[in-house]
């Protein structure tokens, strides 16, 4: 049986990590998820984890290296350029959305405002990326 893809979620906000985990538990769990609290931890996981993530869900607003900087590093690297990155942000200003796509984001999500929306959105994210799309 094919192993479930691993999604690396880079999110510094503990409440949002909790909501993501909760939404994941309510979903059909078609992937595995792993959390990193900031961009540096995400890089450590990418470099050292024996199981490589198949997709990164990347918060825009992060301490140290922000999401856009981390994405530019990954998309500028031959090793990680292929890795799909779904950017997420509470700020869905169209300028930011376009900037993220132009810098190489595979997709962009506006962060939902309540539990029900979180659950709905994450269920569609998990469904599309782990069941419908082919990942590298």
């Amino acid at each position, binding site marked *: 049986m094919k192993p479930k893809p691993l999604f690396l979620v880079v999110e510094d906000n503990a409440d949002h990590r909790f909501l993501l985990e909760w939404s994941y538990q309510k979903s059909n769990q078609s992937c595995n998820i792993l959390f990193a609290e900031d961009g540096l931890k995400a890089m450590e996981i990418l470099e050292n984890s024996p199981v490589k993530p198949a997709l990164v869900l990347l918060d825009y607003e992060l301490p140290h290296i922000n999401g856009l900087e981390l994405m530019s590093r990954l998309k500028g690297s031959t090793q990680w350029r292929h890795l*799909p990155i779904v950017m997420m942000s509470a700020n869905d200003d169209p300028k930011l*959305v*376009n900037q993220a*796509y132009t810098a190489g984001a*595979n997709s962009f999500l506006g962060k939902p405002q309540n539990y029900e929306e979180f659950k709905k959105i994450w269920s569609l*994210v998990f469904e599309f990326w782990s069941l*419908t799309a082919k990942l590298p």
Partner: protein
Amino acid sequence: MNTKPLFLVVDDDQDDRDLLGMAYRQGSYNCEIIFAESGQEALDIMENSRVQPSLLLVDINMPGMNGLELLQKIKNSEEWRVVPVVMLTTANNSKIIDTAYHMGANSYLVKPDNFQTLSNIWDSLYRFWTSTAKLPVSRTQYLAS
């Protein structure tokens, strides 16, 4: 002003275009869909159309300019790289999938061999990209704002 997302499907195979059109017409999808029969026609549409596509669905195996060449042209263009390109192809091997992502494909879908599965794929694609993801704002919307 038309604010519905516009999906541009690039596929040389008439049957595949018809099947996707059928999947689209089967539900009440709040988007527009247009077709190009080749990579060159897709570029012509993008250059000359008043409305910029919100997303491209691109076959790989096409005569003339293939889907990966079209992807490369779009992702190398300052003007067009913002537009998500989703590959939709029968090519289902990991080398081509990795190559497409490496070249900047936003996602990759494999064409199924039956209509019901195609319909499910279209539905999942539509729901993710229009009601979950934020699509880039088009040139037209910028001009109108």
